[in-house]
């Protein structure tokens, strides 16, 4: 830290977008500084203006309609006032950026070598290709790409997501910038890979003395990697300060709420449920008081399964029994077009009892989605046996399966693509009823409206189209759609992973309430360990198509028996910066041991 | 007889190619005589007379030629054009005006002479005529040209078959299957190298008329390659092929040094070369004609519809336009078996509004109102003849009513008019007729049928006509050769009636008329024959079997760079042999 001059100084930054409905202030008076070699976290939920800020730092709003006031200085140069030429000279040279989605942020049609070389030569036009290439290999090596000399000729699609993010980082490092700006660098990645990327960034910062700006929606992601943090909301910084202070003693209520909403892997299902129920009771009392009405009369939606004890009575037949199921896909591989067998799921067994929630956790490619699709009988298992309510549905023909379909519903990950944009919400939810033979339009409407209210929306939303709703609201709609047929089992496939933390929290709460009210049984598939813990009675950890650990959720989290579970838990981002650094150290030791 | 009809079927197909222009043409001025040679100047005089030689005469046409092989062609324009390289026994008189269709000798030394009953004809040919390779043209070469054209087992199917119909020969004879075609074929004798004797089956006084067909051009036996001869016919005329004819693309002619102008009164041979571009868009041809990038539209049917309406409305273009007879009569057949009573047919003749039917053909520029049967260029034709006169040609309703009463149909009757699909002029004619007949209570429906099968399956099918009560059909006819016989025999001789493909569509079968046709073939004097044709004309009209509508005209644009332009009514277009270019 030779210089005391900050490498980035932002003062009273305002970014305004003109829209048809008037100007939108995406960033409204933001100020911060990053000292040379320092690390700053910018945290906020979607719409907080954090990404707009990071683009503004790169001057990437040029050419759009955005108007920018205030000052942005990067290594002493004014980004706002710079000419296009000067700005281009800064980009990648003084300040480099790592974008959110490594799948999308590399050009699919050029080799990574070409892209790295280009990044160097644009700022060093005199450098020869060979020199630039040598640099690229070095850079790739630095970010931990194995065999960089060989891999440099590969195309992006030949890398895994984590490796691709490393390539993007390597590209950012080509010109040894003074600041590295990472905008949600780990969002699309699995936890273990996320941990690796964060570790890498942290290491690079230390080794190269680079300033780091880490932008994320997840406080836990930044906690272990930055010195200072800015919490943003609606374009303004609600809180700014040392990361330890902000996380341990947040001043602003929003920060507090945000922290509270972050699912914590250390909080158990029982704790969470107790807290939720207490809060709900409190809320309902409040409503009762306010309305002076009887809670029972509110909403005619009766529980359709008697609330069952969370722990099953011995001897009761399980709702769902999965025995040694496996799924094999034919994969056309290689240039020679030979088909190979790919076992997405290899022999998974579990029982699921009424009113219980089974969490299925695993990284991408672990087979968890295939498993849920088999349970839904959207695909037919290659072998094994699935019993639902005592009936073997493994190879049941579609026609006989149809009456059972209403008992098993699904909620998908993306609340955007799972709703048809041209169908009103009411129709989207009501269709299933009509499919099942309900003719009375009024009745359908009434049921749908009741349900809309039950999932926290308004009856008046019936005629609106999906685009009028936020992500969280859409997921509520999806849940309502799943509920309309009074199912016994709901399979949730990553239902909250696309949502902001606070929304995520609300949806989890809703799911929990609905389970209480209707005695639902869930299979909850997710990659986020903390989320799974908080909703599941039991947890199954999957890896490469197999369950490596299955047990009572507290047991799995607190005394993991498998190494894989342990490494997952170790990689999980933590809110406590010191704890996070301890974990990082452990990971480094573990890696070094390899 | 069967064969003969088929010959005319081909003619019908040729006639059907006459695309008449629609619309426009309402202005009646004769145009200014100041610039250009004047409107219709080439109809009766030589426009731009000149002896200047040299240059390239450029022809183009919107389709392919049927065949450059003189033995395999049936289109007037090609009979006209092929004379550049194929000299025929006789030819049309190379001068404009009244005598243009007189026959004069070309390869022949003099006009042919016949025996008493016109069954044997003798032709002497000129001595010292040479092919392009310098060898002498003999009577045997002429004989071979004729027989390969008509006796070829179907290989050269496109030409007419007059000789097969008239010569006293085995119709199955095939030159390509005979080891010695000249020796075996004896209906034409060649007593010496310069004499031909034709033996006919029956009297045929108009035999000289068929000696103008390109089939009478000499072809050396050794040069005959069947269908492939068309690629490079051996020239006897002033020009020879430069390279091969490219089907659908074009052909080029250059001077033939072995042609002797002294022997040839027919051809001026002014340009140094002639080129033909084929399959060029009609619109493009017309544009090039106007802009001087082309000299003649080879097809000889005038400009296309688009250019027609443009020129019709452009007074300044008049001096460069010729409005020439297509040679055809446009008429309505009144079917005698369907409308049996002659008085009923005459009622139609009276009631018809010729003026409105004339308008269907584009008025003044579209043609002349026809009140008689024979086209004006044919000897014996009497354009003044009008058996069913009326004021302004709008129809004599009173007389029509009288005729209806006479045939016991005073309230009128119902019938059907057949017309060819897609032929706008035909259909408009039918509509005009329908309207005029309605004035006397004759209710006519109009039915249109596919043009390609109109005679084969519809209006020319006896059964069809009777079953569908088709009382009238709109038709058109052009002469094979410009005499009454060449024009009218096929459509008015009762013995030409056939069950299908019937071109005597009115089914007129009058013993007196039939006898007159026979008598004409035994009459030597053309003027006497013309008188006979005049009688036939009157009788056909009296029988009210044919309702003449118009002698239609086509619009020609006469390039200012063309010299010696005049109308040859025998081909109903300019005489190509006279044309030269003056690019000055």
């Amino acid at each position, binding site marked *: 830290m030779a210089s005391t001059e900050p490498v980035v100084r932002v003062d009273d930054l305002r970014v305004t977008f003109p829209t048809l409905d008037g100007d939108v202030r995406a960033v409204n008076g933001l100020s911060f500084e990053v000292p040379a070699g320092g690390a700053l976290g910018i945290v906020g939920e979607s719409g907080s203006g954090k990404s707009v800020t990071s683009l503004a730092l*790169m001057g*990437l709003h040029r050419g759009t309609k955005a108007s920018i006031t205030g000052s942005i200085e990067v290594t002493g140069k004014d980004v706002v006032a710079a000419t*296009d030429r000067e700005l*281009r000279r*800064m*980009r*990648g*040279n003084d300040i480099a*950026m790592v*974008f959110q*989605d490594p799948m*999308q*942020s*590399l*050009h*699919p*049609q050029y*080799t990574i070598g070409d892209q790295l070389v280009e990044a160097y030569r*644009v700022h060093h036009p005199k450098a020869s290709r060979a020199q630039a290439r040598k640099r690229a290999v070095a850079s790739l090596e630095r970010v931990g790409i194995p065999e960089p000399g060989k891999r440099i000729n590969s*195309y992006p*699609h*030949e890398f895994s997501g984590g490796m691709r993010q490393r390539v993007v980082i390597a*590209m950012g490092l080509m010109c040894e910038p003074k600041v590295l700006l990472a905008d949600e660098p780990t969002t699309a990645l699995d936890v273990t890979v996320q941990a690796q990327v964060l570790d890498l960034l942290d290491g690079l910062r230390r080794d190269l003395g680079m300033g780091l700006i880490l932008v994320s929606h997840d406080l836990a992601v930044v906690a272990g990697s930055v010195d200072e943090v800015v919490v943003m909301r609606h374009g303004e910084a609600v809180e700014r300060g040392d990361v330890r202070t902000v996380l341990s003693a947040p001043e602003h209520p929003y920060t507090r709420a945000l922290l509270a909403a972050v699912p914590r892997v250390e909080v158990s299902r029982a704790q969470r449920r107790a807290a939720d129920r207490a809060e709900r009771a409190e809320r309902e009392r409040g409503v009762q008081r306010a309305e002076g009405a009887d809670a029972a009369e509110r909403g005619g939606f009766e529980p359709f399964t008697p609330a069952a004890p969370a722990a099953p009575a011995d001897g009761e037949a399980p709702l769902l029994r999965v025995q040694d199921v496996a799924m094999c896909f034919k994969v056309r591989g290689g*240039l020679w*077009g030979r088909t190979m067998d790919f076992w997405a799921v290899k022999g998974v067994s579990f029982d699921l009892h009424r009113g219980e929630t089974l969490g299925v956790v695993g990284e991408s490619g672990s087979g968890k989605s295939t498993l849920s699709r088999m349970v839904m009988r959207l695909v037919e298992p290659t072998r094994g046996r699935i019993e639902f309510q005592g009936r073997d549905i493994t190879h049941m023909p579609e026609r006989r399966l149809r009456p059972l379909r209403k008992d098993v519903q699904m909620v998908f990950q993306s609340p955007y693509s799972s709703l048809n944009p041209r169908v009103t919400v009411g129709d989207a939810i009501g269709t299933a009823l009509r499919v099942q033979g309900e003719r009375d339009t009024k009745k359908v409407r009434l049921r749908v409206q009741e349900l809309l209210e039950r999932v926290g929306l308004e009856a008046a939303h019936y005629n609106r189209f999906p685009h009028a709703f936020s992500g969280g609201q859409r997921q509520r709609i999806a849940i309502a759609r799943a509920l309309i047929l009074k199912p016994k089992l709901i399979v949730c496939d990553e239902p909250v992973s696309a949502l902001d933390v606070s929304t995520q929290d609300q949806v989890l709460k809703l799911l929990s309430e609905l389970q209480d009210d209707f005695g639902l049984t869930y299979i909850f598939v997710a990659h986020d360990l903390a989320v799974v813990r908080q909703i599941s009675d039991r947890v199954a950890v999957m890896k490469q198509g197999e369950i490596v650990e299955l047990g009572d959720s507290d047991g799995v989290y607190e005394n993991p028996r498998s190494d894989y579970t342990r490494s997952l838990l170790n990689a999980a981002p933590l809110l406590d910066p010191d704890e996070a650094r301890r974990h990082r150290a452990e990971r480094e030791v573990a890696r070094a041991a390899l | 007889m069967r064969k003969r009809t*088929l010959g005319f*079927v*081909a003619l019908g*197909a040729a006639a059907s190619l006459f695309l008449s222009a629609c619309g426009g043409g309402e202005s009646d001025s004769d145009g200014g005589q100041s610039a250009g040679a004047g409107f219709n100047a080439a109809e009766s005089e030589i426009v731009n007379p000149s002896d200047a030689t040299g240059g390239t005469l450029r022809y183009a046409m919107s*389709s*392919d030629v*049927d*065949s450059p092989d003189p033995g395999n062609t*049936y289109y007037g324009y090609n009979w006209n054009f092929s004379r550049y390289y194929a000299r025929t026994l006789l030819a049309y008189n190379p001068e404009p005006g009244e005598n243009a269709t007189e026959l004069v000798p070309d390869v022949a030394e003099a006009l042919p002479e016949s025996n008493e009953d016109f069954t044997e004809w003798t032709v002497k040919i000129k001595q010292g005529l040479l092919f392009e390779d310098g060898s002498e043209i003999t009577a045997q070469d002429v004989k071979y040209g004729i027989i390969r054209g008509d006796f*070829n*087992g*179907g*290989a050269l*199917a*496109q030409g007419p078959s007059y000789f097969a119909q008239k010569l006293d020969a085995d119709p199955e004879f095939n030159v*390509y299957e005979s080891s010695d075609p000249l020796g075996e074929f004896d209906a034409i004798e060649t007593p010496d190298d310069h004499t031909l004797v034709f033996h006919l089956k029956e009297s045929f006084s108009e035999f000289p008329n068929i000696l103008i067909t390109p089939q009478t051009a000499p072809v050396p036996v050794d040069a*005959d*390659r*069947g*269908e*492939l*001869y*068309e*690629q490079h016919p051996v020239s006897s005329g002033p020009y020879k092929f430069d390279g091969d004819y490219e*089907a*659908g693309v074009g052909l080029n002619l250059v001077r033939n040094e072995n042609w002797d102008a002294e022997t040839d009164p027919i051809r001026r041979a002014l340009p140094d070369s002639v080129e033909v571009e084929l*399959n060029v*868009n009609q*619109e*493009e041809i017309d*544009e*090039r004609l*106007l*802009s001087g*990038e082309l000299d003649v539209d080879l097809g000889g049917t005038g400009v296309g519809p688009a250019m027609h309406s443009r020129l019709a409305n452009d007074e300044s273009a008049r001096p460069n336009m010729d409005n020439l007879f297509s040679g055809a009569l446009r008429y309505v057949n009144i079917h005698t078996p369907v409308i049996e009573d002659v008085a009923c047919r005459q009622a139609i003749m009276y009631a018809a509004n010729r003026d409105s039917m004339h308008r269907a053909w584009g008025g003044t520029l579209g043609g002349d109102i026809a009140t008689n049967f024979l086209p004006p260029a044919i000897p014996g034709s009497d354009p003044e003849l009008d058996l069913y006169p009326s004021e302004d040609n709008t129809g004599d309703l009173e007389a029509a009513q009288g005729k209806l009463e006479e045939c016991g149909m005073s309230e009128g009757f119902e019938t059907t008019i057949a017309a060819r699909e897609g032929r706008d002029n035909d259909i408009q004619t039918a509509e005009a007729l329908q309207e005029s007949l309605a004035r006397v209570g004759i209710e006519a429906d109009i039915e249109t049928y596919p043009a390609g099968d109109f005679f084969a399956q519809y209006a020319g099918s006896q059964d069809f006509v009777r079953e569908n009560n088709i009382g009238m059909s709109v038709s058109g006819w052009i002469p094979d050769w410009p005499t009454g016989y060449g024009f009218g025999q096929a459509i008015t001789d009762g013995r030409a009636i056939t069950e299908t493909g019937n071109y005597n569509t009115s089914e007129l079968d009058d013993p007196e008329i039939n006898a007159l046709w026979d008598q004409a073939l035994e009459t030597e004097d053309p003027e006497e024959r013309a008188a006979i044709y005049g009688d036939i004309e009157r009788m056909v009209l009296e029988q009210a079997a044919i309702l003449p509508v118009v002698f239609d005209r086509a619009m020609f644009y006469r390039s200012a760079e063309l010299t010696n332009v005049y109308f040859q009514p025998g081909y109903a277009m300019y005489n190509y042999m006279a044309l030269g270019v003056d690019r000055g």
Partner: protein
Amino acid sequence: MLNYILRRLGAGVLLLAIVTMVTFWIFYVLPRWAGVTPEGMAAMYVGKAPTPEAIAATVDRLGLDQPIAVQFLDFLRTLLLGTEYTFGRETVECAAPCLGYSFTTNTPVLEQLLNRLPVTVSLGFGAAVIWLIGGVAVGVLSAVRKGSVFDRIAMSLALVGVSLPIYFTGLLSLAFLVHTWDLFPVPRYVPLTEDPVGWFQVMILPWVTLAFLHAAQYARQTRAGMLETLGEDYIRTARAKGLSERKVIFKHALRPTLTPIVTIFGLDIGLVLGGAILTETVFSLNGVGKYAIDAIVAKDLPVILGVTLLGAFFIVLCNLVVDLLYPIVDPRVRIAA
């Protein structure tokens, strides 16, 4: 990779065989089913006004009175081994691959096709170059200056262009540019090898006319693709590297935009014969398209059949080339292939 190429080639050959069979079926079997007699079929082959002798000769010559199976074998034998035709006293050989003989123009079909191919290839190739470069350039400019006056004019023109028939633009340009203002020579094809300048002068109008229609479509396609690509994250990455806007657009954005266009281009080139029919007719160029339309008018079945097969051959060939080219253009396909 070799395996892939071989498989594609095999598929192409198979497709051609199927097209051949379907073509045969359409021209030989279907009319029979529709009740056309062998004589009726023969009449279609001789064209114009045939005599019974000519028809009989043709029935005999083409074996039209034979059973369909025999005819098909004959057809194949002619195609693969060639055949001989007799004219007068002369025998002409039609060497394999013999696409038949036109009795209307008295020429072997293949020979005519080959004679005329240079015209159509000149036309198609030149037009393709113009429409590809022109369309893509306009599309790129429009996308980059989205909403500008240029964009609006270009896209309105493109909309008009897509809906303007070749006949209209062709005749209009002939009437004004050639005949009224004398800006271009009267179109008479001269081979490139004989007179390159003349070739260019003659071909430029037909090129532009044929290209206009496609260029409009390509401009729209390029613009849409470009706008989509410009919104991609990797474009932002490219900008963040400090690349100039020109490099961003022409190196990073254009290539993915062109990828789908390569496919369309391949198909369009294969189908260029369709546009050539109209263009060659309007400009009186004696290419394959003109040959086809003349044959259709003259009901010259052997030629129609030959052109159909040639057209199919080109479409299959172009698809093959696109298939083989695609992995080069888009590396992602290499693995999936």
